[in-house]
């Protein structure tokens, strides 16, 4: 299935769960409510039309500082500012941050037999940072979800062992959140800054 057909297929199966969708630069993306995520994920994996047997990536985005600073322009090797390459399809524009939600949990799926890929995005409010774990479907989600917990502080319901994976247990806070000071260190030994 191509990108547009994938989006349409997901919309047809789950008309109540899909919040929005876009195809920015050719990547099929579907925004979902978190309550339908496990069901959608199971369908994507088991349905013969999708066969998404490979969870390529699972990460999160913090939009709390989005738009507060101008983004750097694209530069070529000589330092001259330039736009994105014209051969990248750009007719479906990026819709921007997901409204009032602070975080976006992002799932990238790929189908090895059918060679198509789909991105799921789940917006989360800061007050209730919890989403269902996908470890029962893809074992590889285990460490990825631990990383998201470590870096962003998003909890995964049903995860077998949700603890920090990159930082040490003594670390306080979640360093990839935009409100974490960019060079604040928490050394175990040695001088403190």
């Amino acid at each position: 299935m191509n990108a547009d057909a994938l989006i349409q297929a997901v919309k047809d199966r789950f008309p109540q769960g899909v919040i929005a969708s876009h195809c920015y630069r050719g990547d099929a993306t579907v925004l979902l409510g978190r309550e339908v995520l496990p069901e959608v994920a199971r369908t994507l994996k088991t349905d013969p039309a999708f066969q998404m047997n490979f969870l390529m990536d699972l990460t999160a985005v913090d939009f709390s500082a989005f738009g507060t600073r101008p983004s750097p322009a694209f530069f070529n090797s000589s330092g001259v500012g330039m736009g994105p390459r014209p051969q990248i399809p750009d007719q479906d524009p990026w819709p921007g941050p997901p409204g009032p939600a602070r975080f976006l949990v992002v799932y990238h799926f790929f189908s090895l037999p059918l060679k198509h890929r789909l991105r799921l995005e789940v917006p989360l409010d800061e007050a209730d940072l919890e989403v269902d774990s996908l470890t029962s479907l893809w074992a590889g989600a285990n460490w990825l979800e631990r990383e998201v917990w470590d870096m962003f502080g998003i909890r995964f319901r049903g995860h077998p062992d949700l603890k920090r994976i990159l930082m040490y247990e003594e670390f306080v806070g979640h360093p990839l959140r935009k409100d974490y000071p960019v060079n604040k260190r928490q050394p175990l030994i040695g001088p403190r800054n």
Partner: protein
Amino acid sequence: MFGDAGFLTSRIEEAIGWARKFSIFQYPFVTACCGMEYMATACSHYDVDRFGAGLPRFSPRQADVLFVVGTISHKMLPVLKRIYDQMAEPKWVVSFGVCTCTGGFYDNYATVMGIDTIMPVDVYIPGCPPRPEYVLDGLLKLQAKMQAQHSSGRRPEPEPRPEFE
């Protein structure tokens, strides 16, 4: 007969220094991409064995020189400190690459701003990564330091560092 620093004593000091500088048993603490350049230096093309440093020991008890090669994170730092403490005197520390010297271009939550915040460093070899010629130059400087050092191997206590809050 020879006084406090007579002929025999100074000759022995010199001989010990000579023996030490040409039998460097190094402990490579390799954590990052600098390790590639370390391997290039240690292999036959640049041949660090010409300077008597061709035999890395992977036990800190048997090593003389701690080569800290690559970025050190705060999670790693207690391990490095423990390795350093396990080494027997006399011992020397070489800070290999700009990340171990100063933290390099990392200025974030994870990276140590130079290993000299917790241990005395004898030779700094900055560079990202340093070329093998640069490493050999650092090694020669370390040998000169070993030759000039008192035979007990003791070095003066490091200057106390200000505590930052």
